[in-house]
């Protein structure tokens, strides 16, 4: 098997194992209370971390570039209750514009 195929197959298996461990082993059963309270805050914690890193990280460096301007504009749009697609469009447009300027 070539290197590329090895990566494709092994990455696929590892990813599915990570995603499916919970659902396969505990599926349908309620989580113990402390775990449930932890899990209830996973969404805000992980999504905020994804926002922060996809906006401000470039590899292992922190950078403030055009993306930050676009995402700030999108955040304002979301706060003003704009639909998701509009917010994403604003982010892309403002970012592209900030790159030209």
């Amino acid at each position, binding site marked *: 098997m070539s290197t590329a195929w090895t990566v494709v197959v092994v*990455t696929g298996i590892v990813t599915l194992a*990570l995603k499916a461990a919970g*659902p396969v082993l505990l*599926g349908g059963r309620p989580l113990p209370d*402390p775990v449930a309270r932890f899990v209830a*805050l996973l969404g805000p914690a992980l999504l905020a971390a994804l926002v922060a890193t996809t906006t401000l990280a470039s590899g292992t460096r922190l950078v403030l570039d055009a993306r930050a301007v676009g*995402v700030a504009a999108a955040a304002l749009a979301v706060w003003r209750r704009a639909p998701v697609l509009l917010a994403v469009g604003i982010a892309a447009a403002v970012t592209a514009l900030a790159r030209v300027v």
Partner: protein
Amino acid sequence: MRRAAHGPARSYGDGARRAVPVAIAVLAFGITFGVLAREAGIGPLAAILMSATTLAGSAQFAAASVLAAGGGASTAVLAAALLNVRYLPIGVSVAPWLEGSLLRRLLTAHLIVDESWAIAADGPGRWNPRVLVGAGTSVLAAWVGGTAIGVASGDLLGDPTRFGLDAAFPALFVALLAPQLRSAGARLAAALGATIALALVPLSAPGVPIVAATAAALVGLRSGRSETPR
């Protein structure tokens, strides 16, 4: 049925519809992945199969980048695995809401991506499995379709950062995060999660900051106050 905390979404179709804005962005990045995969020496069939089986954008980009830079298979797999470790707690979070046979739970788990998970959120600590499957299927179709287009088109389409598309994902995550910030505990977890992740970016391999940010959810354990749905 449990009452939805926000919006009446509860069917497969609702999930698929709510995922449309996400799917458009995913399609664009699928095209980019297809192009990059070719440059990394991943063949057309392997690239499309990877999008269908791994179904995790950042991990696939990481693996392809390692290969493109001449790295070995184990480095590429490790980079991808690190970026996907967050799916372990994410999988545990939805587990109580997934029912049915082992195979059905396995297939549903496959459709978990950040976006489908966020769209399927049905109040703190609750997820709607139908919405998860509907949204996940939309994302899968867009990701695989985009990859196929990218593989076929070569570099005709060029670099999506030119169009500001690299800001699409953070903007999507902002839109997905906003409805989850209704309680003080959630806002604290979000602020902590972002802080932990940013602090670790210069100090660790990509992926590690996101995994470490899960620690922010531990604030849910303090003083035994539960994050009850409104």
